[in-house]
């Protein structure tokens, strides 16, 4: 039942953004998709850090509202520290996902801002709808795990989860162990988690823009 509901939700989000893409044009959707890719990439790789920043931001604002800054300015650091201790972090434990959903929300707001910027140059068409559907899928893929639904249920993940042990089949022991061990070290550095996403997004953007540009120049000539 959960899978069925999830599929309906995914389809609805994809359809909504497909229609929005058709109406708002390909240019808006491509730029919004790039922004969403970047945001989802950040959430995937630096999720905890983002939540920490959000908590810090909230606490900073509340501290200012409780006149913590004037305490600091007057040298009363103890009072400021007490006020800071009294502020509860909004996104912690079970509510941490809400912070990440808020960041996803910012990406959606960016979609509307981009849409407003390109309002005059708007060209409706099927390409916008196609990019909109991809946008909807990516948004759903990022949103559903945050809602507590298992990410593995989503039928088509675009990127493979990195598994250093799956690099080689365990045939000659020395070769397999060397490669997997080394990759595991690189994986620990955090670099390997970001690079596949960068490659995937970069490749897609480069190929689609090149194809568009080449086709356009051909039709003009």
């Amino acid at each position: 039942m959960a899978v069925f509901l999830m599929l309906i939700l995914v389809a609805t989000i994809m359809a909504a953004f497909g229609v929005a893409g058709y109406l708002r044009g390909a240019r808006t959707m491509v730029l919004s998709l790039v922004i969403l890719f970047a945001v989802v990439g950040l959430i995937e790789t630096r999720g905890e850090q983002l939540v920490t920043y959000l908590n810090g931001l909230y606490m900073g604002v509340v501290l200012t509202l409780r006149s913590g800054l004037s305490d600091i300015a007057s040298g009363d650091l103890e009072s400021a520290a007490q006020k800071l201790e009294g502020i509860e972090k909004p996104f912690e434990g079970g509510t941490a996902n809400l912070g990440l959903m808020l960041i996803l929300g910012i990406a959606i707001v960016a979609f509307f801002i981009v849409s407003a910027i390109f309002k005059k140059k708007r060209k409706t068409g099927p390409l916008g709808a196609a990019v909109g559907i991809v946008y909807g899928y990516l948004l759903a893929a990022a949103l559903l795990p945050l809602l507590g639904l298992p990410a593995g249920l989503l039928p088509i993940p675009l990127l493979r989860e990195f598994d250093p042990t799956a690099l080689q089949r365990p045939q000659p022991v020395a070769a397999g162990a060397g490669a997997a061990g080394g990759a595991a070290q690189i994986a620990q550095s955090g670099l390997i988690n970001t690079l596949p996403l960068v490659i995937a997004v970069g490749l897609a953007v480069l190929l689609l823009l090149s194809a568009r540009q080449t086709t356009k120049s051909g039709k003009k000539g």
Partner: protein
Amino acid sequence: MGPIEFFFITLIVLMGLVGLARRSNRELGVTTLLLLTLFVITFLETEVNEQLMAVAGRIGISENEFSEVFDLVAVAVLLFVGFISYQGETLVFPGSGSSGLGLVLGLVNGYLLFGSVWHYLAQANYPFVEVVPDFSALYQLLLPLLPPAILTWPYFVFLAVAMLILRVLK
């Protein structure tokens, strides 16, 4: 023989030079065909592999043997498609294209073609050449970043279809 990664990096750079000469409109056609080929291979590898393995098991082929054969067939198919896409009239995008973009797309094609060949050869544990450890840090960094290691069949099919749409779009 020197480190295997330099062999493949050289091939990818050569593909970039080929792209420079052929220009972007021809390179995009090759890219589309390579994406479709990778879609078929990765789809078979991830979604139909168990069924194929079961069939192979019935005729007495072990799982390891089957996996090695699959990897080698994937390499053969990729090289065959690479050959026919560069040889003769295949899918060409409209327009005269540009050389600079051709260089970049040639490198992308090199990454897709020889990166995938490298991935499947590594999985099959380099059956025809003697590639021995210890592998360099560059090798260990690049191997997990090759196309079939990081991209799935939906990615390939989405991208290929989008490019075909762009090819015919007015």
